[in-house]
């Protein structure tokens, strides 16, 4: 009974969480050209935990104790960007992830990390994510750099409640502290708290159903105060063109977001040659833009100046065909629908409304060489439609984009337990809905090394270079990424 109560206690603690951690082991797949559907990997199986992040299935999926240590570097630079995006972003982070199967008591996952982010030449925007889809933004008058840094912690626990019924929960907490280097010296504090709960029921080895519920709370507080005594001026944008100028010694703004995601999943193994998994997610998110209500010298309340809401539907299905011992074929189908509207709260008028639909079909093929390595190839075709109604800006767009995405990658064991990986990605997007480019071409090269010569740990290295360019213009953006993953097998 005590054991049961302890588990329930852990569940309650973890009920507000997110489970969007980056699986450390994808370092291998990234080195092989991001072959996420064709290559089999320890953290890429067709199950509820790997495919749909249902924490309940962690108990069944993670059966070996290990600790990941992972330092990362990522740089994204170039002039192919939206107005308020930084010219360059440099990210450094270090994370530790521990997985501890506790036998019948369940499986425990713990993660801690610290990230540092340098955003160079941010043009006026004071928000961390100026293009999150809301019609509102906060700008000052200068182009400067932001530095963000902060820790994150995450805990996850899963166990078998009754035979064949598995329960899991996640809790995560993250803080980012930011500062703009020049006027208006905006200080940003982003606090994100989340949690999720999942449940899975296994009828037998071939049929599993599950569901998960996720809640996320995010708050971004921006405080502008120049250290030169100069009053700060902040422009509260409603839409792309209209803004209200606010001026004071100190200007506070706050953005509060809450998101709830719900979705069932089904896994079915038709035979030893065919298995499938399907998930459906529905997410609802709202963002509130708040200003302090000032009376005299004090401001004890806040009022809403803008409100945005988002609804997201996702259907995702994958089927794996095991052609023989050496090869398999994979089919991926997905559909997602993303709608949003924004309201100018003081006058209760609709500012923006938009909808994006995306259909995608993907194929992947993998072939294993005998005692040598393996090769994989993937192709995705997607058709996206965006219907954007920016009433306040008098800007109405209905646009379609057919996109092609091709991936090729290989892993070769050159010498005993030393693996070399490389890959190539090519994509052609007819219309880029985010940055507005036409015929956007992306070329990406990836490299990786796996060193498994030691008994106690494995070292995986990853590097990539990625360049996005436009056929009709000279704008481009390049990305460089490095990642080291140390997996301690016994600790």
């Amino acid at each position: 009974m005590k054991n049961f109560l302890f588990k329930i206690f852990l569940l309650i603690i973890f009920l507000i969480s997110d489970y969007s951690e980056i699986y450390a082991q994808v370092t291998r797949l990234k080195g092989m050209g991001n072959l996420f559907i064709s290559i089999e990997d320890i953290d890429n199986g067709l199950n509820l935990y790997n495919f749909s992040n249902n924490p309940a299935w962690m108990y069944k999926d993670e059966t070996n104790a290990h600790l990941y240590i992972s330092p990362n570097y990522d740089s994204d630079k170039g002039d192919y960007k939206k107005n308020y995006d930084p010219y360059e972003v440099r990210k450094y982070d270090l994370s530790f992830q521990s997985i501890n199967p506790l036998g019948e008591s369940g499986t425990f996952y713990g993660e801690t990390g610290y990230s540092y982010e340098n955003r160079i030449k941010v043009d006026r925007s004071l928000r961390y994510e100026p293009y999150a889809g809301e019609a509102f933004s906060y700008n000052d008058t200068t182009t400067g750099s932001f530095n963000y840094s902060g820790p994150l912690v995450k805990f996850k626990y899963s166990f078998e409640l009754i035979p064949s019924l598995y329960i899991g929960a996640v809790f995560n907490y993250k803080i980012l502290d930011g500062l703009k280097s020049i006027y208006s010296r905006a200080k940003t504090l982003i606090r994100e708290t989340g949690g999720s709960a999942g449940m899975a029921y296994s009828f037998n080895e071939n049929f599993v159903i599950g569901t998960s519920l996720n809640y996320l709370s995010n708050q971004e507080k921006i405080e502008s105060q120049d250290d030169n005594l100069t009053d700060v001026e902040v422009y509260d944008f409603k839409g792309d063109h209209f803004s209200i100028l606010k001026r004071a010694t100190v200007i506070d703004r706050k953005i509060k977001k809450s998101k709830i995601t719900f979705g069932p999943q089904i896994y079915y193994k038709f035979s030893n040659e065919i298995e499938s998994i399907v998930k459906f997610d529905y997410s609802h998110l709202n963002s509130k833009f708040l200003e302090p209500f000032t009376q005299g010298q004090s401001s004890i309340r806040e009022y809403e100046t803008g409100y945005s809401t988002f609804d997201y539907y996702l259907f995702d299905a994958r089927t794996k065909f095991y052609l023989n011992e050496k090869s398999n074929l994979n089919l991926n189908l997905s559909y997602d629908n993303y709608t949003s509207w924004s309201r100018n709260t003081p006058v209760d008028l609709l500012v923006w409304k938009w909808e994006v639909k995306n259909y995608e079909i993907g194929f992947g093929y993998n072939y294993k060489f005998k005692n040598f390595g393996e090769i994989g190839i993937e192709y995705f075709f997607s058709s996206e439609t965006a219907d954007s109604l920016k009433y306040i800006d008098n800007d109405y767009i209905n646009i379609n984009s057919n996109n092609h995405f091709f991936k090729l990658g290989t892993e070769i064991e050159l010498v005993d337990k030393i693996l070399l990986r490389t890959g190539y990605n090519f994509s052609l997007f007819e219309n880029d809905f985010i940055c507005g480019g036409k015929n956007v071409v992306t070329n990406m090269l990836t490299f990786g090394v796996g060193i498994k010569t030691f008994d106690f740990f494995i070292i995986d290295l990853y590097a990539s270079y990625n360049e996005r360019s436009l056929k009709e213009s000279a704008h481009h953006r390049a990305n460089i990424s490095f990642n080291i993953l140390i997996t301690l097998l016994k600790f």
Partner: protein
Amino acid sequence: MQKFLVLFFIISSVLFVGCLEEPPVFFDGQSKIEITAVWENPERGDIEPLSFAKVIVSSEYGINVYSTDVAGLLVLNNLPAATYNISVRKQLPLDSTIIICGTINNIRLSFNSSFVDTIRTNATSFSGITINEIYSSGPVNNIFFMFDQFIELYNSSDSNKYLDGMIITRMSKGNVLYGSGPGSDYGSDGDIDSVTYIFKFPGNPGEFNYPFKSHSFVVIASDAVNHTKTVSTSIDLSNAAWEMYNQFSVGDLDNPNVPNLLNMRSDVMVDFLMNLSDDIIILSDGRDSKWEDGLNIDGIIDGVEYQASTNSSKTLDSRIDRSFVVSPPRYSGKSIQRRYAGSDTNDGNMDWEIIAHPTPGY
């Protein structure tokens, strides 16, 4: 197990339906303003369209400047919901001292509304002395330095004027004891109250000892010294034409090479300093120097109220000015001056603008 699944789907359905929200029915950015500016041509005696006139449109979304077309028409579509003020103005090509102007205020546009009207403009002569620039915000610094303030006057007439006995006063909020605020006519006795500082040019009204040349500027510094020696981002006022000097203060700087305006309040021991972001400055002819009961409106030559925010309440009597100027940020090194030197339509919001740097004497 079946009961559990049924319960699960009921809860999830409730969650799903509960999340759906309805957007507002009406759209922002769908309103319209259509104005036709006309004026009465004195040569022909006809009402004619005021073509290619400057149209200043202000609202909480800021100030924008447009132009009428050849028919005097301006159409603004897709405007967001707000309260708008419109001022049309044009200088007469043959007489730069006359400006044709007209104003419509408090146009409230909500969703999908149209405002169509004709603005009848009138000719306004500004041949006289006006306050042309006020620099009060202070330079960019972190030591609370703001002693480089000045007031600039402009003589827009074709003849010389004389400054003898004229008075410059500050009417600040900190001095309000009664009435509806500084610069208001408490008791409706024809004068404006709440004098904080009052400094006077030498001589007496009607004398001709201190000329003010036609179409020229005069700078009156709080302290006529080179302030860049103290704060590098400041300005040099050692060549100012006049200096405010408080003879009752033991520490006020006095440049011996610059003539002084002297303090008329013996109970005030400090220099003539203005609030950085909100204040009222009055220039009067000096006939009414009895400041205790306020300044007679008849003797006021010009008055300007500046405020930090468009939401601030105006207190200066509307017979002197109908609106106020939005001031630049404190310690920004920015200044306010008239859009056209000397043009005064008694509408501060439309007559004045913020400039990036002070321009003393030019």
